[in-house]
């Protein structure tokens, strides 16, 4: 199942790259065309995925949240401060 998913994903990425790369290059500096070229396949894939997921409702249960019988009984806990880091990034040349 995972290999099938990866195959489909790989196919989608290659297809998108094949269409997107030359089109974006051709679009030059036009943001509108770039937006259209990126938006079309992206929304198309999302639409298809959402519709397919609506037709599928079987899944493997991995959680038992509904069967918890008590509050979490905390035996031990600590939060030890370690360090602080600060990064600085230039956001504009103006």
């Amino acid at each position, binding site marked *: 199942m995972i290999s099938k998913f990866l195959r489909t994903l790989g196919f989608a990425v290659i297809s998108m790259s094949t269409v997107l790369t030359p089109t974006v290059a051709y679009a030059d500096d*036009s*943001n*509108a*065309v*770039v*937006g*259209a*070229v990126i*938006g*079309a*396949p*992206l*929304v*198309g*894939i*999302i*639409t*298809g995925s959402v*519709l*397919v997921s*609506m*037709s*599928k*409702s*079987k*899944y*493997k*249960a*991995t*959680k*038992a*949240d*509904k*069967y*918890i*019988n*008590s509050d*979490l*009984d*905390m*035996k*031990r*806990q*600590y*939060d*030890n*401060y*370690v*360090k*602080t*880091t*600060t*990064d*600085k*990034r*230039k*956001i*504009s*040349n*103006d």
Partner: protein
Amino acid sequence: MANISYKCPTCGAEIFWTAAENCFHCEYCDDKFSLEELTAAMENQKADALTEENVQKHEELEEGEYTQSNDGTVGNNLVKYSCSHCGSEIITDRSTAATVCVYCGNSVVMGEQIINDFAPKYIIPFKVPKEKCMKSFADFAKKPLTPKKFDVNSVVDKLQGVYIPFWLYSGSCHGNIKCECIDEKTWRQGNYEYTEKKYYDVLRDGVLEFDKVPVDGSSKTEDDAMDSIEPFDFKDLKPFNAGYLSGYLAERYDEDKEKCYPRAQLRIENTTRDQLVNTCKYDHVNVQVYNKNTKITGVDYAMFPTWLFYTTYEDKKYFFAMNGQTGKFIGNLPIDKIKLTIYSLIGALGGGILGYLLGGFM
């Protein structure tokens, strides 16, 4: 003695559990009985009590006697019973606990499959009647990608009410997590954006208790499907009585509690981990170590109601199931690839226009 079947105390006709009315209903004289009333009426029929001595044992098939099961697959694990009503042979596999005689329609409960080690402790009786199940499936199948040719009406007749065996695991999980947690703050000053990250070394160690985590004990049903029809509402959990099986099919477990335990353990340990992580109130929580120790204090055997059916569409088999208590439907519907392409293209067109407009503003 024959297998167990339930007779109307008034007229003696075959009587079944009726989900819609939550009682036994005689179709012939229209009388209704609660389980307690029916049990009291049968008090004199002591021979019907479930003991090892008086339940009918299955007979082994002779070699080559039957090789095909009902669904067309070759059966090599079949056994034979006699119908208590008409005497016909009933061929089932070894794990069938209740069925219906194909010749006379008599409901037959295989006593030997529900005594001793196979005696369930609990049962949730059917609450959703077949008619409602059929309507629910019609609603369930109304999805945008369902092919028009997928005829819902032709498949609903194959619906079968089946009691599925479940193991219910109760116990606790002692878990501890060690994580690196980060609180992040971002602000702007002049032409610069600053990001401050505070790092913490965090430990959480706690115990979480669980009650009746269900795992199906039948190899014949898909694990994913049985997981998906949860949850069952345990407020309807009743002490097991074979009378509830009357009129439905039932399976006894063929996967024991040890074999099914890893599925319950995985769920319990994942939920414990989540609960521990949820106590870490930071922007980012990276769990580096998770130690866990699950202790099971009790395992109960129960039967839960489901409506099941298989159907074939374009040579591919599809399986659907409905929770017979809550009415929740699950299954993977066939997908019309032409519809999928059209809807995706419409989505792509919309996305293209949206992208064009947004890009134009940037």
